[in-house]
């Protein structure tokens, strides 16, 4: 009846500090990349701190979770960032929030918490009550700017800027119309969700919190969370529920991509495109409202299945709306693709070479536009994707245009997927609530969100709760690539380049990652070189 999609999905391996670097190197050479990591205060259980590094091995269809621990009096482990660049932010975050030190980390500075947060106070430790208020130390906030010569003008983009839909801060170093460097500082929207979930929320309340990580891709977060718990508890989710989940995930992908096409047009000065795309998108919003009772906060996922079923009548209505949405989208896309001036502004712009993409560990359309063939739906099948037929578009242009094309293909694949799901919906229950929650069991759930791989890690707790929850949204992995894409480009292209990763700062920020200093290590080399080159 049901199918556990979680068999052999991940493997937790305890490693010793001496061997971790070697293991990581081997995995990377085997084609794996760094997905995410978390620090956990396990002192109430065993007097130790733990670090979990999740490494995605798409070729083997498994996540390898490397677990390191450290004693209470010396919470320090070796950093794997020197071996695997993609781990930099995760380790900084664990340091900032849990207080674990990573030896030989190139830049172990604050990532999430504000600069005037007092030292030695770690919010995700179990002895820090969730509602404790902390007074600032009165330090100065602000980006520590790079030193540049007088010819270089610094153009701040944010934290509040009409072009941005969420607060974030990019500091662009500009010479006339060229960008010679960029710094990023984010995590202005850190909301302390992990702490909240670990302190005062129950197992089935958390999907609703997770859904509100993002206003565009909420369903994927609630699904990934539920999957993580289902893994940990070995819950068999009924097939019909898996199909309904996939349905809403694909509906979400379509709406997200149409939204993005509109935003991209607007940024390129083509407001008519924005209006037409969002008009087509309205049909998709109507589908969501029809099925879930709301245009965006679907609230459909629970641990063990879904909350709402689909009647035959709803299926018919959905198919009609789908046809309108697909037809109109196609018309607008055909028009846009035929506009040479728009294409010219995307071609060859914001380039991210495949090598850099792999090392940084970018995901989703950004990765697929740089020639990396990866998709969680195919590599680690979840929900109903194992049964469904779809293509994964990969382009080699590495530029904004390639990312645009990847999303176009994905959108039409999604239309097809929605039809397949509706035509093959299996009968049966929509939820399985007969399970017991084990104590301190690890679970990992991952989905292919519209922006890329979304990973949630969970350690179950007792009494209908979770001990530790760590969501990692796709934009977290894609942001470090942005300064590389911006460097050397015309400042007029900055918005479309930043937008080409389809950034979701709310998603990224819930984890709270801050400080321009973080990005600096990644691109300090090219930045200085760039300035030098222009000076001559």
């Amino acid at each position: 009846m049901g199918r556990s999609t979680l068999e052999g999905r991940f493997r937790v391996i305890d490693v010793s500090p001496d061997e971790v670097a070697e293991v990581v190197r081997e995995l990377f050479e085997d084609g794996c990349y760094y997905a995410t990591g978390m620090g956990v205060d396990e002192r109430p259980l065993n007097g130790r701190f733990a670090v979990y590094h999740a490494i995605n091995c798409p070729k083997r269809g498994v996540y390898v979770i490397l677990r390191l621990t450290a004693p209470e009096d010396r919470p320090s482990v070796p950093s794997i960032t020197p071996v695997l660049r993609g781990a930099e932010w995760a380790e900084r975050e664990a340091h900032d929030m849990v207080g674990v030190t990573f030896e030989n980390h190139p830049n172990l500075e604050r990532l999430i918490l504000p600069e005037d947060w007092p030292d030695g106070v770690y919010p995700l430790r179990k002895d820090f009550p969730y509602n404790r208020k902390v007074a600032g130390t009165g330090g100065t906030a602000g980006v520590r700017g790079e030193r540049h010569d007088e010819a270089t003008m610094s153009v701040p983009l944010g934290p509040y800027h009409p072009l941005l839909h969420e607060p974030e801060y990019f500091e662009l170093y500009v010479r006339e119309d060229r960008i010679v460097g960029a710094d990023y500082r984010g995590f202005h929207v850190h909301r302390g969700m992990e702490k909240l979930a670990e302190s005062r929320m129950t197992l089935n309340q958390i999907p609703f919190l997770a859904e509100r990580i993002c206003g565009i891709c909420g369903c994927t977060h609630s699904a990934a969370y539920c999957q993580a718990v289902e893994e940990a508890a070995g819950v068999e989710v009924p097939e019909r529920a898996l199909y309904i989940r996939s349905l809403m995930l694909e509906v979400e992908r379509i709406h997200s991509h149409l939204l993005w096409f509109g935003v991209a047009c607007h940024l390129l000065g083509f407001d008519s495109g924005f209006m037409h795309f969002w008009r087509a998108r309205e049909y998709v919003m109507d589908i969501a409202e029809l099925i879930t009772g709301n245009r965006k906060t679907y609230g459909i996922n629970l641990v063990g299945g879904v909350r709402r079923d689909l009647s035959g009548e709803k299926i018919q209505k959905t198919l009609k709306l789908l046809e309108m949405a697909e037809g109109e989208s196609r018309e607008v896309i055909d028009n846009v693709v035929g506009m040479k001036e728009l294409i010219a502004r995307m071609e060859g712009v914001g380039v991210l070479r495949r090598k850099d993409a792999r090392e940084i560990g970018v995901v989703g359309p950004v990765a697929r536009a740089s020639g990396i063939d990866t998709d969680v739906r195919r590599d680690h099948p979840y929900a109903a994707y194992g049964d469904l037929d779809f293509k994964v578009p990969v382009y080699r242009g590495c530029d904004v245009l390639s990312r645009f094309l990847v999303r176009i293909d994905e959108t039409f694949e999604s239309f097809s997927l929605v039809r397949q799901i509706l035509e093959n919906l299996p009968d049966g229950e929509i939820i399985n609530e007969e399970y017991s929650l084990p104590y301190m069991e690890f679970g990992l759930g991952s989905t292919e969100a519209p922006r890329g791989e979304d990973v949630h890690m969970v350690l179950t707790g007792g009494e209908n709760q979770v001990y530790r929850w760590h969501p990692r949204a796709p934009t977290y992995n894609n942001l470090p690539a942005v300064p590389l894409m911006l460097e050397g480009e015309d400042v007029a292209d900055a918005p479309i380049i930043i937008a080409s990763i389809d950034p979701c700062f709310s998603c990224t920020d819930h984890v709270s990652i801050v400080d321009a200093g973080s990005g600096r290590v990644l691109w300090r080399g090219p930045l200085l070189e760039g300035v030098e080159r222009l000076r001559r």
Partner: protein
Amino acid sequence: MGLAVSIGKVTERYPFAPVEVPDDYRGKPVIDPGICTGCGACASACPPQAIQVKEEGEFRVVHLFLGRCIFCGRCQDVCPEGAIRLTTEFELATPNHDDLHQFVRLRMVRCVRCGRPFDTYRHLVRSLREVPFIEGERLLLCPECRAKAPLD
């Protein structure tokens, strides 16, 4: 784009004309005070804790505050009596704060032995459906006193 000419305007006339929502659109939740037993299942399930259940002397008060509500409908899912339902009402903006609060006051039963109010009358009556018939005074004992009382 000849598209625009063939489509015309898509702008809806709202608020000068009503907007249609599906029948099962998740709007404002309303508690039926004639059905609610004060069991508090909704309060436990509510993710933002928009529903609080408190005791005020003789009464158990179920308090729903729309300002915290996320319109998820979990309360409706878990209510054993179907007392709380989400309507399709979504135009909730108001200058009057009171409009955002709903209170249901349910009289409680006092334990005949220790005198403590331990359950609402309605819930007690409802729970008789599920438990085997309890004779006489045992019914009106609070859980602690009932546990201590000798079985007949």
